[in-house]
């Protein structure tokens, strides 16, 4: 029997469960020199905002044990240029695109959602309500059930059509399950777990925070157990809610771990910084592991770690 590597996120059908992570694949052009973008399940774009943004001052980055801190601050060209340049190029490559959007206000999410209707090659929308690199921590929508709900409702009301909405959540909360439940009730078709964790490194020579904006988002294998835990908890509570898992996935084994915890697809982020072809290696390794373990499809393995075991 042949192995079925395909998966779904809501009504988005993907040929395999390996995606890029938002903000870790540039515009797609940077990586296309190293592999055809169509080899991945989908390309998740950097988070697009209404207006152009310079992002934060440098230093923006600090390497940490098995990870890194970043404080890019959502640098980008704004939605007009993105729709004019990036979307047509990705469509021309035949890539399946998941657009990530980020707003400063609930109204921003509504405006952006309207701009995302009927775009070529776009199979889903990732709603970033959890970027840690914003001026006001109170503005991290996914840190509070009410603001998380408001942002997702704004997208749901304005998106129209069938495009699945995936809400990207922050791990920096007391109870991620309650936030996931709130966004699902508000109309999200799935959740992306997890965004980076807020962190800090102090430069002991300068005796100052290493990043210009002091704090940044921690990513990489260092956060993987936190991410796996979040995926496991949300899948246990909301088994029907599709989960896009991410957080420090560096090889096929790691991707398998997220699928066992309940993810239907996974995003590869920081690993791409260390290796431009990381996502392709992960895809190949995951397929080999799933086959070796005797699964006939991705579907069969999703949430397998939740099964009852009798001793």
């Amino acid at each position, binding site marked *: 029997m042949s192995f079925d590597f395909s998966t779904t996120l809501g009504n988005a059908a993907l040929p395999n469960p390996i995606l890029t992570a938002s903000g870790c694949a540039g515009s797609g052009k940077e990586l296309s020199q190293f592999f055809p973008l169509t080899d991945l399940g989908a390309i998740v774009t950097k988070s697009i905002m209404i207006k152009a943004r*310079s*992002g934060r001052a440098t230093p923006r980055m600090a390497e940490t044990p098995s990870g890194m801190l970043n404080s890019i601050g959502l*640098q980008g060209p704004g939605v007009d240029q993105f729709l004019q340049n990036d979307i047509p190029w990705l469509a021309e490559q035949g890539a399946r695109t998941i657009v990530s959007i980020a707003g400063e206000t609930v109204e921003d999410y509504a405006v952006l959602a309207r701009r995302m209707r009927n775009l070529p090659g776009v199979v889903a929308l990732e709603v970033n309500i959890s970027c840690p690199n914003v001026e006001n921590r109170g503005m991290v929508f996914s840190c509070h059930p009410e603001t998380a709900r408001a942002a997702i409702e704004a997208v749901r009301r304005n998106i129209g059509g069938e495009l699945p909405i995936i809400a990207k959540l922050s791990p920096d909360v007391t109870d991620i399950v309650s936030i996931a439940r709130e966004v699902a009730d508000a109309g999200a078709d799935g959740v992306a777990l997890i965004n980076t964790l807020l962190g800090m490194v102090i430069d002991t020579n300068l005796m100052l925070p290493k990043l210009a904006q002091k704090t940044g988002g921690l990513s990489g294998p260092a956060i993987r157990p936190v991410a796996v835990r979040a995926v496991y908890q949300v899948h246990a509570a909301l088994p029907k809610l599709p989960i896009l898992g991410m957080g420090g996935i560096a090889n096929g084994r790691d991707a398998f771990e997220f699928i066992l915890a309940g993810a239907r697809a996974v995003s590869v982020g920081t690993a791409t910084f260390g290796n431009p072809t990381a996502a392709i290696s992960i895809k190949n390794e995951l397929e080999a592991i799933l086959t070796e373990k005797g699964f006939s499809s991705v579907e069969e393995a999703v949430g397998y770690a939740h099964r009852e075991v009798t001793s």
Partner: protein
Amino acid sequence: MINQINQRASQVSAQLISNKRVGAYHHMSFAVGDLAAQALPGNFVAIAVGGEGSSMVLRRAFAIYRSTEKCAEGGLIELIVAPHGQGSRWLTSLPPHSVVDMVAPLGTHFGIPTEPVRALLVGGGYGSAPLFGLAELLKSRGCRVDMVLGASTANKIYAPLEGKRAVSSLTITTDDGSTGIQGQITDVLPSLIEENEIEIVYSCGPMGMLEAITRVSERYGILHQAAVEESMACGIGVCMTCVIPVRDDAGVPRMLRSCIDGPVMDGSKVVWDSKRKIPEGTFGA
């Protein structure tokens, strides 16, 4: 729509052919096959460090010292590495025949004038590395090449014998006076520019030095191509950490990636001294 980004780059398993200590640095040669033919002076490589399962998740970027297309080992890329961090210490401790994961060549290269010009090459510390290949190329195009190298102390001056062949004069400055003239590069720049009737300056080194060179070259109204140094996570344009503000044609600063829009940039367009702040009027600020 044709993609121009990273278009000469590939990812290869590069075998370390030799690793020699030279002063405070290591001269490292890697067999890279056909890829060597793609490299131009100013380009850089990005190397994964720490080996399998390393806790260092980011690549390290190094300017290419020299690339040779055809030699006994096939194509070679040579680097000058300063072992000042955990990743570069790991790299410089590798024995010959070790294999590293290398992505190269990356970034912009020094522009070569179409007509013979009088060029001054300025390097700070191991920033001299990419200038020797550039000197050879400029000389082969009929340019006169003068060079000035500066560092804090003598063993941090990298100036190999074979590298000096292409230059008409070599001036050295050290902060402590342990070799050459005591002082900084900028102390000798005006006289070198005047005496040699310099038309273009090429530079590579710490950002403070590049800023000072920009001020001098602007005073003389001459071009300045600077290879900038900003810490990078990926080297291929996806992480957005290595940005610096650079003025566009309308004079508006934009946060450009030094890995893709650099490392070689027009010095007069870079907004220097922008550490820890976004210049006023920056696009999207």
